[in-house]
Protein backbone atom coordinates (compact mmCIF):
# COMPACT_ATOMS: atom_id res chain seq x y z
CA UNK A 1 0.00 0.00 0.00
CA UNK A 2 1.31 3.41 -0.99
CA UNK A 3 0.83 6.27 1.47
CA UNK A 4 0.51 9.83 0.17
CA UNK A 5 2.86 12.63 1.14
CA UNK A 6 1.39 14.79 3.92
CA UNK A 7 -0.35 11.88 5.68
CA UNK A 8 0.00 11.67 9.51
CA UNK A 9 2.00 8.48 10.13
CA UNK A 10 4.23 6.64 12.59
CA UNK A 11 7.75 5.43 11.80
CA UNK A 12 9.88 3.00 13.77
CA UNK A 13 13.69 2.99 13.80
CA UNK A 14 16.43 1.06 15.55
CA UNK A 15 18.52 3.43 17.67
CA UNK A 16 20.95 0.85 19.06
CA UNK A 17 21.42 -2.72 17.81
CA UNK A 18 21.79 -5.54 20.36
CA UNK A 19 25.62 -5.29 20.24
CA UNK A 20 25.54 -1.54 20.94
CA UNK A 21 23.39 -1.52 24.11
CA UNK A 22 24.66 0.15 27.30
CA UNK A 23 27.07 -2.09 29.24
CA UNK A 24 24.90 -2.33 32.37
CA UNK A 25 21.60 -3.50 30.84
CA UNK A 26 20.33 -6.94 31.94
CA UNK A 27 20.75 -9.85 29.47
CA UNK A 28 17.13 -9.89 28.24
CA UNK A 29 17.41 -6.20 27.28
CA UNK A 30 20.89 -6.61 25.78
CA UNK A 31 19.51 -9.23 23.35
CA UNK A 32 17.01 -6.81 21.75
CA UNK A 33 17.50 -3.50 19.93
CA UNK A 34 16.61 -0.09 21.38
CA UNK A 35 13.78 1.07 19.15
CA UNK A 36 12.16 4.46 18.67
CA UNK A 37 8.69 5.33 17.40
CA UNK A 38 7.85 8.84 16.24
CA UNK A 39 4.81 10.38 14.55
CA UNK A 40 4.83 13.04 11.88
CA UNK A 41 3.65 14.13 8.43
CA UNK A 42 5.07 11.97 5.64
CA UNK A 43 7.40 13.97 3.41
CA UNK A 44 7.21 11.82 0.24
CA UNK A 45 4.87 9.11 -1.00
CA UNK A 46 6.11 5.85 0.56
CA UNK A 47 5.15 2.17 0.53
CA UNK A 48 4.07 0.74 3.92
CA UNK A 49 6.97 -1.11 5.56
CA UNK A 50 9.57 0.92 3.64
CA UNK A 51 12.01 3.55 4.88
CA UNK A 52 10.24 6.89 5.27
CA UNK A 53 10.99 10.44 6.40
CA UNK A 54 8.54 12.50 8.41
CA UNK A 55 8.29 16.05 9.68
CA UNK A 56 7.31 15.99 13.37
CA UNK A 57 5.15 18.59 15.13
CA UNK A 58 8.29 20.47 16.20
CA UNK A 59 9.48 20.55 12.56
CA UNK A 60 12.20 17.94 13.09
CA UNK A 61 12.96 15.38 10.39
CA UNK A 62 12.83 11.75 11.57
CA UNK A 63 13.50 8.58 9.56
CA UNK A 64 12.30 5.03 10.07
CA UNK A 65 10.17 2.20 8.73
CA UNK A 66 6.64 3.34 7.90
CA UNK A 67 4.48 1.25 10.23
CA UNK A 68 1.17 3.04 10.82
CA UNK A 69 -1.12 5.44 8.97
CA UNK A 70 -3.10 7.96 11.00
CA UNK A 71 -2.19 6.18 14.26
CA UNK A 72 -4.69 6.54 17.09
CA UNK A 73 -4.73 5.87 20.82
CA UNK A 74 -6.03 2.43 21.69
CA UNK A 75 -5.51 2.29 25.47
CA UNK A 76 -8.80 2.06 27.32
CA UNK A 77 -10.56 1.68 30.64
CA UNK A 78 -9.75 -2.01 31.03
CA UNK A 79 -11.98 -5.01 31.70
CA UNK A 80 -14.21 -5.74 34.69
CA UNK A 81 -11.96 -6.74 37.57
CA UNK A 82 -13.82 -8.95 40.11
CA UNK A 83 -11.08 -8.28 42.70
CA UNK A 84 -12.08 -4.58 42.67
CA UNK A 85 -15.84 -4.72 42.13
CA UNK A 86 -16.93 -5.43 45.70
CA UNK A 87 -14.45 -3.22 47.60
CA UNK A 88 -16.77 -0.18 47.70
CA UNK A 89 -19.86 -2.05 49.02
CA UNK A 90 -17.71 -3.95 51.56
CA UNK A 91 -16.25 -0.73 52.96
CA UNK A 92 -19.64 0.99 53.14
CA UNK A 93 -20.99 -2.02 55.06
CA UNK A 94 -17.96 -1.99 57.37
CA UNK A 95 -18.51 1.69 58.20
CA UNK A 96 -22.28 1.24 58.53
CA UNK A 97 -24.83 4.01 59.09
CA UNK A 98 -24.77 7.57 57.78
CA UNK A 99 -21.57 9.57 57.63
CA UNK A 100 -21.16 11.61 60.79
Amino acid at each position, binding site marked *: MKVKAGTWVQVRAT*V*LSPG*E*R*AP*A*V*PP*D*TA*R*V*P*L*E*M*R*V*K*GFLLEETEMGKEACVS*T*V*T*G*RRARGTLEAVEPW*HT*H*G*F*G*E*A*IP*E*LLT*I*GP*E*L*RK*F*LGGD*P*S
Partner: protein
Amino acid sequence: MRSYPGTMARRNEIMMASVGIDYQRFNEGILAFNYEAMMEEVGYGLEEVTRIQKGVSVGNTPLIELRNLTRLARRLAPPGKGARIFLKDEAANPSGSFKDRRAALSAYHAKTLGYKGMIAATSGNYGAAVASQAAALGLECIVAQEVYDSQGRGQPEILEKGRKCEAYGAEVVQLTVGPELFYVFLLLLEETGYFNASLYTPFAIAGIETLGYEVGTQVTSQVGRPPAAVLVTHAGGGNITGTARGLRKAGCQSTHVVAVSVDLSGLHMASDRDFNRKSFTTGHTGFGVPFATWPDRVDVPRNAARPLRYMDRYVTVSQGEVFYVTEALSQLEGLERGPAGNTSLAAALVIAGEYPEDEAVVVQETEYTGAGKLPSSQLSFARGLGVKVRRGDPGESIPGQSIVTPEHPGQLRLTEVDLEGLARSYLRKALAALEGKSLDASTVCFLAQEVRQSEDFVREFASVSAQESR
Protein backbone atom coordinates in the same frame (compact mmCIF):
# COMPACT_ATOMS: atom_id res chain seq x y z
CA MET B 1 29.41 9.54 13.97
CA ARG B 2 27.17 10.02 16.99
CA SER B 3 28.05 6.79 18.75
CA TYR B 4 26.68 5.80 22.16
CA PRO B 5 30.05 6.06 23.99
CA GLY B 6 30.99 9.26 22.12
CA THR B 7 27.73 11.01 22.97
CA MET B 8 27.81 9.85 26.60
CA ALA B 9 31.36 11.22 26.94
CA ARG B 10 30.02 14.67 25.99
CA ARG B 11 27.16 14.47 28.49
CA ASN B 12 28.35 17.22 30.86
CA GLU B 13 29.04 19.61 27.99
CA ILE B 14 25.60 18.96 26.44
CA MET B 15 23.84 19.28 29.80
CA MET B 16 25.67 22.52 30.60
CA ALA B 17 24.53 24.11 27.32
CA SER B 18 20.96 22.92 27.82
CA VAL B 19 20.29 24.29 31.33
CA GLY B 20 22.56 27.32 31.43
CA ILE B 21 23.87 26.52 34.92
CA ASP B 22 27.55 26.39 35.84
CA TYR B 23 27.38 23.67 38.48
CA GLN B 24 31.14 23.64 38.97
CA ARG B 25 31.12 26.86 40.95
CA PHE B 26 29.34 25.08 43.81
CA ASN B 27 31.94 22.31 44.06
CA GLU B 28 33.82 22.01 47.36
CA GLY B 29 35.83 18.89 46.64
CA ILE B 30 35.49 15.68 44.65
CA LEU B 31 32.11 14.85 46.16
CA ALA B 32 31.14 17.81 48.28
CA PHE B 33 29.27 20.81 46.94
CA ASN B 34 27.41 23.68 48.53
CA TYR B 35 23.82 22.50 48.20
CA GLU B 36 22.15 25.44 49.95
CA ALA B 37 24.16 27.98 47.92
CA MET B 38 23.07 26.20 44.72
CA MET B 39 19.42 26.30 45.81
CA GLU B 40 19.62 29.98 46.76
CA GLU B 41 21.61 31.29 43.82
CA VAL B 42 20.09 29.27 41.00
CA GLY B 43 16.61 28.62 42.35
CA TYR B 44 13.93 31.23 42.89
CA GLY B 45 12.61 32.52 46.21
CA LEU B 46 9.26 31.27 47.49
CA GLU B 47 7.44 34.54 46.70
CA GLU B 48 8.78 34.64 43.17
CA VAL B 49 7.91 30.97 42.57
CA THR B 50 4.37 31.63 43.82
CA ARG B 51 4.05 34.61 41.48
CA ILE B 52 5.37 32.64 38.46
CA GLN B 53 3.04 29.71 39.18
CA LYS B 54 0.03 31.98 39.74
CA GLY B 55 0.67 33.51 36.33
CA VAL B 56 -0.01 30.15 34.70
CA SER B 57 -2.79 29.00 37.07
CA VAL B 58 -0.56 26.49 38.87
CA GLY B 59 -0.79 25.81 42.62
CA ASN B 60 -3.13 27.07 45.32
CA THR B 61 -4.97 23.74 45.10
CA PRO B 62 -7.74 22.69 47.54
CA LEU B 63 -7.02 20.81 50.76
CA ILE B 64 -9.82 18.27 51.15
CA GLU B 65 -10.69 16.57 54.44
CA LEU B 66 -11.38 12.88 53.87
CA ARG B 67 -14.09 12.42 56.50
CA ASN B 68 -15.15 8.89 55.57
CA LEU B 69 -11.61 7.58 55.23
CA THR B 70 -10.86 9.18 58.61
CA ARG B 71 -13.84 7.24 60.06
CA LEU B 72 -12.40 4.11 58.48
CA ALA B 73 -8.95 4.74 59.96
CA ARG B 74 -10.51 5.32 63.41
CA ARG B 75 -12.38 1.99 63.21
CA LEU B 76 -9.00 0.30 62.75
CA ALA B 77 -7.10 2.41 65.32
CA PRO B 78 -6.75 2.04 69.11
CA PRO B 79 -9.21 4.18 71.17
CA GLY B 80 -8.47 7.93 70.95
CA LYS B 81 -6.25 7.45 67.93
CA GLY B 82 -7.03 8.22 64.29
CA ALA B 83 -5.86 11.62 63.06
CA ARG B 84 -7.94 13.58 60.56
CA ILE B 85 -6.83 12.67 57.03
CA PHE B 86 -6.47 15.50 54.51
CA LEU B 87 -5.73 15.33 50.79
CA LYS B 88 -3.99 18.01 48.76
CA ASP B 89 -5.87 17.89 45.46
CA GLU B 90 -2.99 18.47 43.06
CA ALA B 91 -5.09 17.02 40.21
CA ALA B 92 -6.61 20.52 40.13
CA ASN B 93 -3.45 21.84 38.44
CA PRO B 94 -3.69 22.54 34.67
CA SER B 95 -2.29 19.19 33.45
CA GLY B 96 -3.62 17.21 36.42
CA SER B 97 -0.71 16.68 38.81
CA PHE B 98 1.78 18.44 41.11
CA LYS B 99 4.33 18.18 38.29
CA ASP B 100 2.93 21.44 36.89
CA ARG B 101 4.70 23.18 39.78
CA ARG B 102 8.07 21.94 38.51
CA ALA B 103 7.29 22.43 34.84
CA ALA B 104 6.08 26.01 35.39
CA LEU B 105 9.51 26.97 36.70
CA SER B 106 11.39 25.12 33.94
CA ALA B 107 9.25 26.77 31.27
CA TYR B 108 9.65 30.22 32.85
CA HIS B 109 13.41 29.74 33.06
CA ALA B 110 13.64 28.47 29.46
CA LYS B 111 11.58 31.39 28.18
CA THR B 112 13.63 33.91 30.19
CA LEU B 113 16.90 32.52 28.81
CA GLY B 114 15.51 32.70 25.25
CA TYR B 115 15.29 29.00 24.40
CA LYS B 116 12.92 28.15 21.53
CA GLY B 117 11.69 24.93 23.07
CA MET B 118 12.24 22.39 25.83
CA ILE B 119 12.78 18.66 26.15
CA ALA B 120 11.99 16.31 29.00
CA ALA B 121 12.91 12.64 29.35
CA THR B 122 10.08 11.15 31.37
CA SER B 123 7.40 8.48 31.21
CA GLY B 124 5.41 10.19 33.93
CA ASN B 125 3.02 13.06 34.55
CA TYR B 126 5.96 15.45 34.23
CA GLY B 127 5.86 15.06 30.43
CA ALA B 128 2.27 16.25 30.31
CA ALA B 129 3.15 19.10 32.68
CA VAL B 130 6.07 20.26 30.51
CA ALA B 131 3.93 19.98 27.37
CA SER B 132 1.16 21.98 29.03
CA GLN B 133 3.49 24.74 30.25
CA ALA B 134 5.27 24.86 26.88
CA ALA B 135 1.90 25.37 25.19
CA ALA B 136 1.01 28.15 27.63
CA LEU B 137 4.32 29.99 27.04
CA GLY B 138 4.56 29.40 23.30
CA LEU B 139 7.57 27.08 23.45
CA GLU B 140 8.17 23.99 21.33
CA CYS B 141 8.23 20.73 23.29
CA ILE B 142 9.60 17.21 22.90
CA VAL B 143 8.94 14.46 25.45
CA ALA B 144 11.04 11.28 25.28
CA GLN B 145 9.33 8.29 26.94
CA GLU B 146 10.37 4.75 27.80
CA VAL B 147 7.11 2.99 26.98
CA TYR B 148 7.29 -0.26 24.98
CA ASP B 149 8.85 -3.68 25.54
CA SER B 150 10.55 -5.44 22.61
CA GLN B 151 7.16 -6.92 21.58
CA GLY B 152 5.71 -3.44 21.15
CA ARG B 153 3.48 -3.75 24.24
CA GLY B 154 3.08 -0.41 26.00
CA GLN B 155 2.15 0.24 29.63
CA PRO B 156 -1.39 1.71 29.47
CA GLU B 157 -0.50 4.36 32.04
CA ILE B 158 2.47 5.59 30.00
CA LEU B 159 0.52 5.46 26.72
CA GLU B 160 -2.06 7.74 28.34
CA LYS B 161 0.60 10.20 29.42
CA GLY B 162 1.96 10.21 25.85
CA ARG B 163 -1.54 10.94 24.53
CA LYS B 164 -1.82 13.86 26.93
CA CYS B 165 1.52 15.29 25.75
CA GLU B 166 0.28 15.13 22.15
CA ALA B 167 -2.96 16.81 23.17
CA TYR B 168 -0.89 19.81 24.32
CA GLY B 169 0.95 19.88 20.97
CA ALA B 170 4.20 18.18 22.02
CA GLU B 171 6.24 15.74 19.96
CA VAL B 172 6.46 12.39 21.74
CA VAL B 173 9.49 10.18 21.05
CA GLN B 174 8.57 6.69 22.23
CA LEU B 175 11.36 4.26 23.10
CA THR B 176 11.64 0.65 24.12
CA VAL B 177 12.96 -0.38 27.54
CA GLY B 178 16.45 0.70 28.56
CA PRO B 179 18.50 3.38 30.28
CA GLU B 180 19.71 4.55 26.85
CA LEU B 181 16.66 6.81 26.86
CA PHE B 182 19.21 9.24 28.25
CA TYR B 183 21.38 8.83 25.13
CA VAL B 184 18.44 9.68 22.85
CA PHE B 185 17.66 12.61 25.15
CA LEU B 186 21.22 13.96 24.69
CA LEU B 187 20.97 13.51 20.90
CA LEU B 188 17.71 15.47 20.86
CA LEU B 189 19.22 18.27 22.97
CA GLU B 190 22.18 18.52 20.57
CA GLU B 191 19.97 18.43 17.49
CA THR B 192 17.46 21.05 18.63
CA GLY B 193 19.36 23.27 21.06
CA TYR B 194 16.25 23.22 23.26
CA PHE B 195 16.25 23.71 27.03
CA ASN B 196 16.66 20.63 29.23
CA ALA B 197 13.48 20.71 31.34
CA SER B 198 15.10 18.41 33.88
CA LEU B 199 13.10 17.36 36.93
CA TYR B 200 16.20 17.93 39.03
CA THR B 201 17.34 21.54 38.53
CA PRO B 202 17.27 23.88 41.56
CA PHE B 203 14.31 25.78 40.12
CA ALA B 204 12.33 22.57 39.39
CA ILE B 205 12.69 21.65 43.07
CA ALA B 206 11.94 25.22 44.19
CA GLY B 207 8.70 24.80 42.22
CA ILE B 208 7.57 22.11 44.70
CA GLU B 209 8.36 24.20 47.77
CA THR B 210 5.05 26.01 47.24
CA LEU B 211 3.27 22.66 47.67
CA GLY B 212 4.82 22.07 51.10
CA TYR B 213 4.25 25.70 52.04
CA GLU B 214 0.56 25.55 51.05
CA VAL B 215 0.06 22.28 52.98
CA GLY B 216 1.65 23.84 56.07
CA THR B 217 -0.38 27.06 55.96
CA GLN B 218 -3.70 25.45 54.93
CA VAL B 219 -3.56 22.83 57.69
CA THR B 220 -2.50 25.37 60.32
CA SER B 221 -5.41 27.58 59.33
CA GLN B 222 -8.04 24.78 59.14
CA VAL B 223 -6.93 22.64 62.09
CA GLY B 224 -5.26 25.25 64.26
CA ARG B 225 -1.92 23.47 64.35
CA PRO B 226 0.70 22.22 61.86
CA PRO B 227 0.22 18.76 60.34
CA ALA B 228 1.53 15.90 62.52
CA ALA B 229 2.69 14.05 59.42
CA VAL B 230 2.86 14.71 55.70
CA LEU B 231 2.97 11.62 53.51
CA VAL B 232 4.79 11.92 50.21
CA THR B 233 4.74 9.40 47.38
CA HIS B 234 8.43 8.92 46.69
CA ALA B 235 10.20 8.13 43.42
CA GLY B 236 12.99 10.41 42.16
CA GLY B 237 13.15 12.45 45.37
CA GLY B 238 11.96 15.85 44.13
CA ASN B 239 8.53 15.57 45.70
CA ILE B 240 9.87 14.91 49.19
CA THR B 241 12.72 17.43 48.91
CA GLY B 242 10.55 20.30 47.72
CA THR B 243 7.66 19.50 50.06
CA ALA B 244 9.89 19.24 53.13
CA ARG B 245 11.66 22.51 52.30
CA GLY B 246 8.30 24.24 51.81
CA LEU B 247 6.97 22.88 55.13
CA ARG B 248 10.02 24.29 56.91
CA LYS B 249 9.43 27.68 55.27
CA ALA B 250 5.84 27.53 56.58
CA GLY B 251 7.20 27.03 60.10
CA CYS B 252 6.21 23.35 60.36
CA GLN B 253 9.42 22.24 62.08
CA SER B 254 7.77 19.42 64.07
CA THR B 255 5.91 17.83 61.12
CA HIS B 256 7.06 14.30 60.30
CA VAL B 257 7.90 13.92 56.62
CA VAL B 258 7.12 10.35 55.58
CA ALA B 259 8.15 8.92 52.22
CA VAL B 260 5.98 6.17 50.76
CA SER B 261 6.76 3.91 47.78
CA VAL B 262 5.10 0.90 46.20
CA ASP B 263 7.26 -2.15 46.86
CA LEU B 264 8.56 -3.50 43.55
CA SER B 265 11.59 -5.27 44.99
CA GLY B 266 12.88 -8.08 42.80
CA LEU B 267 11.90 -6.41 39.52
CA HIS B 268 14.75 -4.99 37.42
CA MET B 269 13.79 -1.59 36.08
CA ALA B 270 15.91 -1.98 32.93
CA SER B 271 14.67 -5.49 32.13
CA ASP B 272 12.69 -5.92 28.91
CA ARG B 273 10.62 -8.62 30.63
CA ASP B 274 10.12 -7.03 34.05
CA PHE B 275 9.21 -3.61 32.61
CA ASN B 276 5.60 -4.55 31.91
CA ARG B 277 5.20 -6.78 34.96
CA LYS B 278 4.93 -3.82 37.26
CA SER B 279 1.62 -2.02 37.52
CA PHE B 280 3.02 1.25 38.85
CA THR B 281 5.18 3.34 36.58
CA THR B 282 6.26 5.76 39.31
CA GLY B 283 6.23 6.12 43.10
CA HIS B 284 7.89 2.74 43.50
CA THR B 285 11.05 1.36 45.10
CA GLY B 286 12.68 0.86 41.68
CA PHE B 287 13.20 4.64 41.67
CA GLY B 288 12.74 5.42 45.36
CA VAL B 289 15.68 3.40 46.70
CA PRO B 290 18.36 4.14 44.04
CA PHE B 291 17.54 7.87 43.99
CA ALA B 292 17.73 8.03 47.80
CA THR B 293 21.06 6.20 47.92
CA TRP B 294 22.70 8.05 44.99
CA PRO B 295 20.83 11.15 43.77
CA ASP B 296 23.36 12.24 41.14
CA ARG B 297 22.25 9.65 38.59
CA VAL B 298 20.20 12.14 36.61
CA ASP B 299 20.19 14.44 33.58
CA VAL B 300 21.98 17.32 35.34
CA PRO B 301 25.42 17.21 37.02
CA ARG B 302 24.06 17.99 40.50
CA ASN B 303 20.62 16.77 41.51
CA ALA B 304 18.72 19.36 43.53
CA ALA B 305 16.53 16.56 44.90
CA ARG B 306 18.36 15.04 47.90
CA PRO B 307 15.68 12.83 49.54
CA LEU B 308 17.73 11.32 52.39
CA ARG B 309 18.26 14.84 53.77
CA TYR B 310 14.51 15.20 54.30
CA MET B 311 13.02 11.81 55.19
CA ASP B 312 11.94 11.30 58.80
CA ARG B 313 10.60 7.88 57.87
CA TYR B 314 10.29 5.72 54.73
CA VAL B 315 7.63 3.02 54.34
CA THR B 316 6.48 0.78 51.51
CA VAL B 317 3.05 -0.56 50.54
CA SER B 318 2.06 -3.19 47.97
CA GLN B 319 0.43 -2.66 44.56
CA GLY B 320 -2.80 -4.36 45.64
CA GLU B 321 -3.15 -2.04 48.65
CA VAL B 322 -2.86 1.06 46.45
CA PHE B 323 -5.53 -0.24 44.07
CA TYR B 324 -7.69 -1.00 47.13
CA VAL B 325 -7.49 2.53 48.53
CA THR B 326 -8.02 3.97 45.05
CA GLU B 327 -11.40 2.19 45.10
CA ALA B 328 -11.99 3.41 48.66
CA LEU B 329 -11.27 7.03 47.68
CA SER B 330 -13.70 6.81 44.76
CA GLN B 331 -16.49 5.04 46.57
CA LEU B 332 -16.30 6.54 50.06
CA GLU B 333 -15.24 10.09 49.22
CA GLY B 334 -16.49 10.55 45.65
CA LEU B 335 -12.99 11.40 44.41
CA GLU B 336 -11.70 9.45 41.41
CA ARG B 337 -7.95 10.01 41.35
CA GLY B 338 -4.66 8.22 40.82
CA PRO B 339 -3.65 5.46 41.11
CA ALA B 340 0.02 6.41 41.57
CA GLY B 341 -0.82 9.48 43.64
CA ASN B 342 -2.71 7.22 46.02
CA THR B 343 0.44 5.39 47.16
CA SER B 344 0.74 7.61 50.20
CA LEU B 345 -3.02 7.40 50.79
CA ALA B 346 -2.62 3.64 51.39
CA ALA B 347 -0.09 4.45 54.11
CA ALA B 348 -2.27 7.25 55.52
CA LEU B 349 -5.00 4.82 56.59
CA VAL B 350 -2.45 3.09 58.83
CA ILE B 351 -0.37 6.11 59.92
CA ALA B 352 -3.48 8.12 60.94
CA GLY B 353 -4.01 5.40 63.57
CA GLU B 354 -0.67 6.25 65.19
CA TYR B 355 -1.66 9.85 66.03
CA PRO B 356 -4.38 11.30 68.32
CA GLU B 357 -7.74 12.22 66.81
CA ASP B 358 -7.13 15.98 67.00
CA GLU B 359 -4.00 15.82 64.84
CA ALA B 360 -3.86 16.06 61.02
CA VAL B 361 -2.19 13.69 58.60
CA VAL B 362 -1.82 14.91 55.02
CA VAL B 363 -1.57 13.04 51.73
CA GLN B 364 0.12 15.77 49.71
CA GLU B 365 -0.87 14.90 46.13
CA THR B 366 -3.47 13.47 43.81
CA GLU B 367 -3.21 13.00 40.06
CA TYR B 368 -5.79 13.01 37.26
CA THR B 369 -7.12 9.66 36.12
CA GLY B 370 -8.90 8.19 33.09
CA ALA B 371 -8.31 5.63 30.35
CA GLY B 372 -5.00 3.83 30.84
CA LYS B 373 -4.50 5.12 34.38
CA LEU B 374 -7.35 3.31 36.11
CA PRO B 375 -6.85 0.25 38.33
CA SER B 376 -9.02 -1.66 35.81
CA SER B 377 -6.69 -0.70 32.91
CA GLN B 378 -3.55 -1.59 34.83
CA LEU B 379 -4.92 -4.85 36.21
CA SER B 380 -6.31 -5.96 32.82
CA PHE B 381 -2.86 -5.40 31.34
CA ALA B 382 -1.20 -7.27 34.23
CA ARG B 383 -3.58 -10.25 33.88
CA GLY B 384 -2.83 -10.38 30.14
CA LEU B 385 0.85 -10.84 30.96
CA GLY B 386 0.15 -13.68 33.39
CA VAL B 387 0.30 -11.72 36.65
CA LYS B 388 -2.15 -13.33 39.13
CA VAL B 389 -4.72 -10.92 40.59
CA ARG B 390 -6.60 -12.06 43.71
CA ARG B 391 -8.07 -11.02 47.05
CA GLY B 392 -6.30 -11.96 50.27
CA ASP B 393 -3.45 -10.91 52.52
CA PRO B 394 -1.48 -8.29 50.53
CA GLY B 395 1.63 -9.38 52.42
CA GLU B 396 1.61 -12.52 50.27
CA SER B 397 1.96 -10.64 46.97
CA ILE B 398 5.14 -11.01 44.92
CA PRO B 399 5.96 -8.06 42.61
CA GLY B 400 5.71 -9.16 38.98
CA GLN B 401 3.95 -12.42 39.85
CA SER B 402 0.90 -11.54 41.91
CA ILE B 403 -1.20 -8.56 42.98
CA VAL B 404 -3.28 -9.14 46.10
CA THR B 405 -6.03 -6.68 47.07
CA PRO B 406 -7.00 -6.87 50.76
CA GLU B 407 -10.25 -8.57 51.81
CA HIS B 408 -10.55 -6.24 54.79
CA PRO B 409 -9.11 -2.77 55.53
CA GLY B 410 -7.43 -4.24 58.63
CA GLN B 411 -5.07 -6.06 56.25
CA LEU B 412 -3.42 -2.78 55.15
CA ARG B 413 0.18 -2.90 56.38
CA LEU B 414 3.32 -0.82 56.16
CA THR B 415 6.85 -2.09 55.77
CA GLU B 416 9.47 0.17 57.33
CA VAL B 417 12.57 0.91 55.26
CA ASP B 418 15.73 1.12 57.38
CA LEU B 419 17.02 4.67 56.90
CA GLU B 420 20.41 3.81 58.42
CA GLY B 421 20.69 1.03 55.87
CA LEU B 422 20.00 3.52 53.07
CA ALA B 423 22.59 5.87 54.60
CA ARG B 424 25.19 3.07 54.54
CA SER B 425 24.29 2.25 50.94
CA TYR B 426 24.80 5.93 50.01
CA LEU B 427 28.16 6.04 51.82
CA ARG B 428 29.32 2.86 50.08
CA LYS B 429 28.76 4.55 46.69
CA ALA B 430 30.38 7.77 47.93
CA LEU B 431 33.52 5.95 49.06
CA ALA B 432 33.70 4.15 45.72
CA ALA B 433 33.43 7.50 43.93
CA LEU B 434 36.38 8.82 45.99
CA GLU B 435 38.53 6.05 44.47
CA GLY B 436 40.77 5.67 47.50
CA LYS B 437 41.31 9.39 48.10
CA SER B 438 41.22 10.32 51.75
CA LEU B 439 38.08 11.59 53.41
CA ASP B 440 38.79 15.19 54.47
CA ALA B 441 36.83 17.09 57.11
CA SER B 442 34.66 19.02 54.65
CA THR B 443 33.69 15.82 52.79
CA VAL B 444 32.75 14.15 56.09
CA CYS B 445 30.59 17.15 56.96
CA PHE B 446 28.92 17.08 53.52
CA LEU B 447 28.25 13.32 53.66
CA ALA B 448 26.79 13.59 57.16
CA GLN B 449 24.31 16.18 55.86
CA GLU B 450 23.56 14.06 52.80
CA VAL B 451 22.61 10.95 54.79
CA ARG B 452 21.26 12.84 57.82
CA GLN B 453 23.54 11.08 60.26
CA SER B 454 26.32 12.28 62.55
CA GLU B 455 29.87 12.89 61.34
CA ASP B 456 30.92 10.03 63.65
CA PHE B 457 28.56 7.71 61.76
CA VAL B 458 30.29 8.67 58.48
CA ARG B 459 33.82 8.27 59.93
CA GLU B 460 32.98 4.93 61.53
CA PHE B 461 31.50 3.61 58.29
CA ALA B 462 34.60 4.72 56.37
CA SER B 463 36.97 3.13 58.86
CA VAL B 464 35.06 -0.20 58.89
CA SER B 465 35.01 -0.18 55.07
CA ALA B 466 38.76 0.48 54.95
CA GLN B 467 39.43 -2.45 57.34
CA GLU B 468 37.18 -4.77 55.32
CA SER B 469 38.91 -3.92 52.05
CA ARG B 470 42.35 -4.70 53.49
